[in-house]
């Protein structure tokens, strides 16, 4: 399978800063302290720090399955941005999650997502979450629809890369 070529020549650091801005503008992921560890297009790596609110069954100390869906949705949605020649608005069409083993209390969740294929109208992404290296908890695949430059607000990429303040000011809506 051909790995999509990424014509964008921004540095890894500027991508990491852009993705960090992206997840910190989202109230839900900001609230949970989701952290961007690395962006090497077309792959994004993040960490969700351990918090009791992530539990799905506090009597058995297991991570809520929905936390994994939420994290995969965020990871995949972020990967979309670095898979395109120029960042576009891309709504999630669908998401599928397979639960391989339970997530355990007290451990951070690590995850990565990568662009598998970009077409004129779609971006196909796959992602994975683990707590211990080599032991995946969940795998996800998500498909995103490209709305194209015509339906992407002017200054979207600039805002993402902190070249303008528009995404930040959107926070105050």
């Amino acid at each position, binding site marked *: 399978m051909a790995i999509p070529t990424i014509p964008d020549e921004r540095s890894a650091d500027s991508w990491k800063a852009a993705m960090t801005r992206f997840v910190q503008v989202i109230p839900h992921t900001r609230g949970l302290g989701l952290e961007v560890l690395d962006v090497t297009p077309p792959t994004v790596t993040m960490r969700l720090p351990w918090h009791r609110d*992530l539990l799905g*069954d506090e009597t058995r100390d297991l991570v809520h399955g929905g936390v994994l869906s939420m994290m995969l949705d965020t990871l995949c949605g972020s990967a979309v941005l670095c898979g395109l020649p120029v960042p576009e608005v891309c709504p*999630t069409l*669908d998401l599928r999650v397979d639960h391989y083993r339970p997530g355990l209390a007290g451990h951070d969740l690590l995850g990565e997502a990568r662009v598998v294929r970009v077409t004129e109208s779609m971006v196909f992404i796959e992602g994975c979450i683990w707590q211990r290296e080599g032991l995946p908890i969940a795998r996800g695949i998500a498909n995103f629809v490209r709305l194209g430059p015509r339906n992407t607000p002017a200054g979207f990429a600039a805002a993402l890369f902190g070249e303008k303040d528009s995404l930040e000011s*959107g926070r105050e*809506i």
Partner: protein
Amino acid sequence: MQERISSREWLERTRTSGDVDAILALVPYAQRIGVSAMIEPQGRLYRLAPQQDNIGNVLLPALHGGVVAAFMETAASLELMLVARAVRLPKVIDFSIDYLRTANLVPTLARCTVLREGRRMANVQVCAWQDDATKPIAMARLHLLLAEPPDVDSDAIASHA
């Protein structure tokens, strides 16, 4: 000693009383995103509160798609705990969601349909909508393993081992 969601006795009692709140009290992430349930003439309805913290797109603004997914997954698990033929502990095996419309910052409702309940596995469909039940914002489907819940005794033994 804290009661265990997983014990047969606890599940049996909760199913008899239909006390969803008692289950939700033990599910921190469901509490964080604001999941509740209510009984309607046509069955149980689940509700996701329109909290600022559930926003995933500040520009629209819209709910986080992953939070909507977590809500629908929670609804399916709760529904099975309460309506499965036998006392079972559902474990999500796989989950799939189609996003049909923008989820605005208003209350989201969901209804579950158990399409198949076998001895070990169940298939549940979840439909979520906001203002208009005929215009779903998302549809989800899940396979859940119907695990045999441990008895309190075996739990106690395990925790002392």
